[in-house]
């Protein structure tokens, strides 16, 4: 499925997201998320800002709009980041479309 800004994505139930010392850590819960079962994942600041907005209500477009205001950046850059991150998370089975 193509990822577009009018879709809503939520964190997969197959991962656990934790905030430890201000860092977002994604812990795979089921087999097959990473290359091995002991891996953890963290995200850069952009990734964290997007992930924490995946609340099941906001579309990716809504999230991009919020981030444009927050980071004072042009929409095209933010939209690129949102779609890029979600694409990566979909590949890693860490988010699913609602």
């Amino acid at each position, binding site marked *: 499925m193509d990822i577009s800004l009018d879709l809503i994505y939520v964190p997969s139930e197959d991962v656990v997201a934790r905030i430890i010392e201000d860092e977002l850590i994604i812990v795979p*819960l*089921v087999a097959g998320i990473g290359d091995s079962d002991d891996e953890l994942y963290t995200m850069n600041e952009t990734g964290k800002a997007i992930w924490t907005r995946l609340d099941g209500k906001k579309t990716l477009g809504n999230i991009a709009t919020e981030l444009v205001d927050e980071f004072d950046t042009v929409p095209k850059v933010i939209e690129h980041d949102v779609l890029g991150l979600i694409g990566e998370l979909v590949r890693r089975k860490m988010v699913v479309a609602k």
Partner: protein
Amino acid sequence: MPYVKKLKPKEFTIWKGKDPLLSHIDIELTERCNNNCIHCCINQPANDKYSLNREMDTEFIKGILTEAAILGCLTVRFTGGEPLLRHDFSQLYLFARRLGLHVILFTNARLITEKIALLFEQYPPGHVVEVSVYGMSRKSYERVAQHNGAYSEFLSGVDMLLRHQVPFIVKGLKLPFLNEEQLAFETFAKSIPAMDSIPSCSMNFDLRSRRDDPAKNASIMKLRSTPEETVAHLTSNPFYLKEMAQFCSRFIGLAGDKLFSCGAGHGACIDAYGNAQLCLPMRSSETVVNLKEVSLKKAITESFPAMRELKATNPDYLRKCAICFLKGLCEQCPAKSWMEYGTLDTPVDYLCDVAHAQARFLGLLYVGEKAWEVEDWKERVERFVDAQGLNYNPPN
């Protein structure tokens, strides 16, 4: 540019120099065990009502796990006794995993059923399961475990793990009657996919950590490898010299009078009854905090740091251990002292002898010398680590 960074736990340095309040926690789910191993320092009978009635209940353990996760904990070790004896094991396991904790399980594998193996297959622990092996034949295994039928159940459990591709490693023990099975054990270990090194073997067995069974203590003492046997076993590892040089280059040095120079109290260990301890065998009342009265956070931020400042007062300890440079090489510690003598600062002669035997092998001591009497110890350590191409960086 990737937005997501993959990390192995050992590469996990997200705190940028800051330590988390709690990085790992050990929880002894029960002292009960379905084995009755001849060398065991803790086991109670599997159906022991007195132990069972005092054990933490499910909700209490969940509360500890939740608090640990809030404090930044990434790994919980479930140990025992045999943790799988608990009827709520699966529930606790999944609860921990859903908190985002990796689980280390210490088990004898006898209770690994199809259901448990499937659980681990579907929700991998995030760490290899650690299986204790007590022999490579029914006769020897059951001579150690003192339970008829234990060996076939162990084999069945191991088979379940293999069939469900649950990564596990094995650990053995050194006993005279197991010597002839050592090769078979090592061959078995090599056949296990997750084993990437020679299996570890217990041989300097601890005495009863509850100090509850003098008769068993006497028999455990007889099972211990002698210092010479210990050295012979350790040095059969082709990497022993290199590994010891690496270890000595960082850790060997004078012990001083501070009792806790180890990692005790940097994580937390919870006994089967809800007491937080500096380390698992450290059960002296001076170093235990009841989590029914004190929060885990308070235990690790207030109680443990105060305990870690305890100093030795035993004149024998101050005359020998405090000025001995074999700290690190020697396993002397408050927990071992507690198990042997019921105090925190009594030199454990057996461990002292083992450390001296190792030091002689490494060229750090000459025959007849006592390490606390050696004045040029720094030069000796430097010579040893230098011969292995390393530099000596003594601990502070």
